[in-house]
């Protein structure tokens, strides 16, 4: 059985755009490192770091992995399921917060 090899060409981003995305990713990484250096409160830091990471991941997926230039059907097939499964995992985090309070002497 041969693989399906339809010749498909999509318009992509320019080299300048890739350069801008790379610079943005470096800047966001710098902001993350600065947050760690400033030792901001844990909850604020966790929220900010996860938020920045999601933005960086979205930029990599959209531009470097070319998903921005693919059909919407590809995105809709792959990503809602992934996000749903990850959110399902997060349900258990509430339990993790409860466990330290159950320790005797704390």
């Amino acid at each position, binding site marked *: 059985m041969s693989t399906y090899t339809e010749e498909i060409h999509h318009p992509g981003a320019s080299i300048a755009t890739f350069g801008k995305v*790379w610079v943005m990713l470096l800047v966001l990484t710098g902001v993350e490192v600065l947050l760690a*250096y400033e030792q901001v409160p844990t909850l604020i830091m966790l929220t900010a770091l996860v938020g920045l990471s999601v933005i960086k991941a979205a930029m*990599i997926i959209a531009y*470097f992995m070319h998903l921005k230039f693919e059909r919407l059907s590809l995105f809709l097939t792959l990503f809602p399921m*992934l996000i749903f499964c990850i959110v399902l995992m997060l349900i258990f985090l509430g339990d993790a917060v409860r*466990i330290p309070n159950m320790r005797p002497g704390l």
Partner: protein
Amino acid sequence: MSTQVTAATESLWSGGRSPYAVNSKKFGMWLFLISDSLTFAAMLFAYTYSRVTNPDWPKPFDFSPAIIFSTVMTFCLLSSSLTMVLAVNAMNHGDRKGTVKWLIATMIGGGAFVVLHMSEWLKLINVEHVTPFGNPWGVPLFGGTFFALTGLHMTHVIIGLIYLLVMVVAVGRGKFKAEDVEVAGLYWHFVDLVWMFIFPLVYLMSARVG
């Protein structure tokens, strides 16, 4: 009736062509990456869960040198993603020589990441006495989750380097098409993407300043 049959035949979903307008190699890689994302998500979740349940979770990473070191590793990986994009771009323009050049640059970035990561592991093991089963701070889960997560990621990077080496040799010999380089690029960017979560959640959240 005949009009309906024609319309059905022309539908994107009626078979005979890809409704996603991607070739099967690329679609296969996307499916693999989505399933791999779930593996990493589960491991990151396990790390976070263990951390939240342990109020005495250690902070073993000094800002200098450990965090600066891991920031340089992040820079290497991000830069290798840029060179990978340039390799795909060169191949799309039929420039095989340029593609080989950028692929080698990508391998240098990935190789630097692995070398830096290994030296950091060795420091943790030999100096801080952290192993997957124990550490001086009495929270063995730290070593277990840390080495499992970063070890799985480093395995992906090493596999990616072998994949890129195969691409360098094949493209240099005139084999493979632009879509093959693009599929390799998808894998490499994924490795970069996963590190964008490991770096802040594992390293920056456990940074020690002063």
